[in-house]
């Protein structure tokens, strides 16, 4: 069999026959254009080939080297959320026609993907209460960077005001994207209750800015007064960009668009996308219709075929890199299509009532946990502002130490804020979702109470 491999049909016999047809003596002749000096003379220094059984064993060993606590007693959030995904979601995205197809450049044989994205765009618009949505961005963080660039494109002021209650990694990524485009990111500090003070926003916006950026619910779990902030932005001629990292909240919270936000973007991993150690995730971006032609990324639109049948196509591609090159609205090409499909199926399966219930349960469980923990010995809830499904707890000891201690007992109590704010070493961001049963919450509160 020579080196015949299961992923490669051509047998040695096939190769020889094809070489004859091509009219060359050997495979090597096909590589004649690579200078001899550059040809690799020895085999690569990597393992394999592995039979499939060994491959599965190898990866199972790696997976077992993780400790996932069977998904129990985890209270981690901070930009990624553990939610239950109905089995139909994975079942449907596992249709090879969905996951093994390319970007739908040829609409006649890609209507499945195109219609699904059109529906996804609609769902995002309904959720955010805005006019338009693109087909996805890499993740919430890069979506923010692109959102800021979009705001600057339509209203160049070389300055944006950004709340410090926005996810730290989102700020980091935005800083990287903006580093060489001379747009200043002016920080806006949150107040003691955990939210941005609209008056402070007014002040910060006084010295011109293209956009005000806030997160809602914000990184500390608190809900912002979006309406007031929108007014502040509008008065200063700036756009309001609302970042959402936990879109489940929009099951009960107003779509920021209806509160005056111009751009709503963020991370939709919560909608059925596996945690998968941080990716692939799903950046989403919605905006008012005036942003249509400066939107980054793919857009799917309705079209009619030669017989007048309704169909869907990639559209307004004159915004994009393959046409506009360096003048494009973004360099994004491959995006997160399958994750958008995942989120759409998740939203469709939960539906109007289901998403509301999901949000209700998340909030109720977090409210319960917050209450229990507030009364735990030595622990205090840091912020007074209302929260959705996460909140900051100040511990009697260093949060890192607390995490280590509870980890031993099979609990991941939350995210130590020191990971992003070294000085806040006793603060723990606790996230509670529908997958945390009351018993887990009670145990968490009890264990936290034992730290003092």
């Amino acid at each position, binding site marked *: 069999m020579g080196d015949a491999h299961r992923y490669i049909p*051509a047998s040695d016999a096939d190769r020889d026959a094809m070489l004859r047809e091509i009219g060359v003596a050997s495979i090597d002749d096909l590589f004649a*254009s*690579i200078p001899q000096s*550059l040809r690799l003379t020895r085999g*690569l*220094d990597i393992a394999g080939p592995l039979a*499939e059984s060994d*491959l599965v064993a190898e990866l199972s060993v*790696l997976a077992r080297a993780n400790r996932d606590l*069977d998904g129990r007693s985890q209270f981690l959030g*901070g930009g990624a959320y553990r939610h239950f995904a*109905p089995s*139909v979601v994975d079942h*449907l995205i596992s249709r090879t026609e*969905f*996951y*093994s*197809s*390319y970007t*739908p*450049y*040829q609409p*006649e044989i890609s209507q*499945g993907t195109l*219609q*699904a994205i059109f*529906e996804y*765009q609609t769902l995002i618009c*309904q959720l955010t209460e805005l006019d338009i949505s693109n087909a*996805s961005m*890499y993740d919430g963080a*890069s979506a923010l960077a692109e959102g800021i660039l979009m705001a600057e494109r339509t209203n160049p002021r070389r300055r944006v005001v950004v709340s410090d209650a926005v996810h730290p990694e989102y700020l*980091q990524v935005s*800083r990287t*994207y903006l580093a*060489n485009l001379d747009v200043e990111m002016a920080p806006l500090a949150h107040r003691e209750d955990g939210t941005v003070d609209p008056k402070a926003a007014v002040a910060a916006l006084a010295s011109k800015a293209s956009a005000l950026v806030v997160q809602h619910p914000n990184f500390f779990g608190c809900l912002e007064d979006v309406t007031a902030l929108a007014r502040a932005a509008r008065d200063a001629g700036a756009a309001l960009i609302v970042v959402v990292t936990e879109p489940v909240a929009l099951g009960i*919270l107003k*779509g920021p668009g209806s509160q005056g936000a111009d751009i709503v973007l963020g*991370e939709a991993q919560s909608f059925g996308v*596996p945690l998968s*150690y941080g990716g692939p995730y799903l950046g989403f971006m919605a905006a008012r219709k005036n942003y249509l*032609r400066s939107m980054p990324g793919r857009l799917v*639109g309705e079209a*009619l075929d*030669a017989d007048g049948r*309704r169909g869907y*196509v990639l559209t307004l591609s*004159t915004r994009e890199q*393959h046409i506009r090159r360096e003048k*494009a609205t973004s*360099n994004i*090409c*491959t*995006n997160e299509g*399958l994750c958008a499909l995942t989120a759409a199926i998740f939203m*469709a*399966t939960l*539906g109007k009532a*289901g998403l509301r219930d999901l949000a209700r349960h998340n909030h109720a469980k977090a*409210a319960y946990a917050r209450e229990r923990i507030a009364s735990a010995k030595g622990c205090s809830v840091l912020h007074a502002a209302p929260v959705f499904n996460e909140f900051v707890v100040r511990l009697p000891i260093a949060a890192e130490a607390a995490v280590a201690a509870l980890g031993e007992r099979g609990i991941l109590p939350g995210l130590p804020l020191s990971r992003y704010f070294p000085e806040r070493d006793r603060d723990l961001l606790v996230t509670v979702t529908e997958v945390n049963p009351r018993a887990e919450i009670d145990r968490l509160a009890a264990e936290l109470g034992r730290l003092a």
Partner: protein
Amino acid sequence: MQPRTLRPPEKLLFEVSRPGRRGSALPPLDVPDPERYDLPAAYLRDELDGFPELSETEVVRHYTRLSRLNYAIDLGLYPLGSCTMKYNPKVNEQVARIAGFGGAHPQMPEAFVQGNLRLMHDLERMLCAICGMDRFTLQPAAGAQGELVGIMMVRAYHVKQGNPRKVVLIPDSAHGTNPASAHIGGYKVEQITSNRKGCVDLEALRRRMADDVAVLMLTNPNTLGVFEPEIEAIAATVHAKGGLIYMDGANLNAFVALARPGDMGVDVHHLNLHKTFSTPHGGGGPGAGPVGVKKPLEPFLPIPTVEKEGDRYRLSHDRPHSIGKVRSFFGNFGMHARAYAYILALGPQGLRRMSETAVLNANYIRRKLEKVYHLPYDSPTMHEVVFSDRNLEAHGVQTLDVAKRLMDYGFHPMTIYFPLIVKGAMMIEPTESESREELDLFVEAMLAIAEEARRDPELVRTAPHTTPIRRLDEVGAARNPVLRWVSSGAPRPEAG
């Protein structure tokens, strides 16, 4: 001739929706339900206006039917040039879903994710071995983001040298993401025109190269599927003036285990795991675009990096000159797991056979079609071959028509009208996943279409004829964009 099915086309989710239908249920709430959520009433919405209401059964039917309107790699040849549409091993889908991976939260303490960290560490080592680079970052979510990371590291490098420089040189045959990424990197883009061979014009480069040029962004093999024969001289020229070489690695499938970017004078390059290393394209992503660098660029890698200490693995943020982050957390880990499995499944011999066969298949197609279809550049073909529609012009048939007609023969078309330096380009990349029989079927279809173009051009110009829907009015769609459904009740916001 057979009539199209009489079943009406699939409605939109929102059109199928009916009040009161449920597709899911939650367990009973086991904690007190705070009165109207004790949240400010002003923050709350009444209901998700327009959101669908469907039973699970209907959701499954809707998406199952939609799926059948798609072409896919598991249905046949998918010769999209530059996209490397290869077989996506099923076992990779399985292993990526192992609970330990799929369920791991990115905020978990390192002690809880040693398996994941080891996978990322080992994958980085493998990519270094394959590409001859010193280090890789796995953070970029796709090739274009990899380009951006590369350009930013280049800039950081020059800044450290005291001058960021101004220009990025890019061949006119390059992919659109190259100039777009260079632009976000804060550089002026300057095109260099390809020579008659379709390659970089070394003389022109020598003339232009100066110390205002930060980097030459090169695709190798280039988008014509041609290996840059003078790559060494090119690199020397650029390096001589203190410039760097960025390689767009989208076409790496052409020479894995046969040659290495690191040996060609490349200082930094990205890969597309969703091309060369078989992670599924998902109808438009996710992908992953790791970036490899030589030592001098190491200080600028994005954070965090994965470091091994003894038998433990940790995330290091200690990289003072890092460009920072371009994506939250650690990139598309799920794709890393798949690529890791793919590389191990193939091993050194398998990877070599992969590229050998990819090049073999492309040359086979070239051989079978070059007598009929015009070959604008007859330079040696690597993993893909680019034809033009010149020979069809006489019959008023264009590349687009050939592409559409291919659908009637049961194939996904090739990439068309790219690279831009070829008028009416047809860019064909078969990959190693195709059997000779499948290639022959494709060749027959292409030859039949050329014949039809002569005999019955109208048949080709009006293709496709066998698809669930016919050619769509893309101009009309862009002129009056409808980007979302709105209930016939509500006024439709005429977007734009």
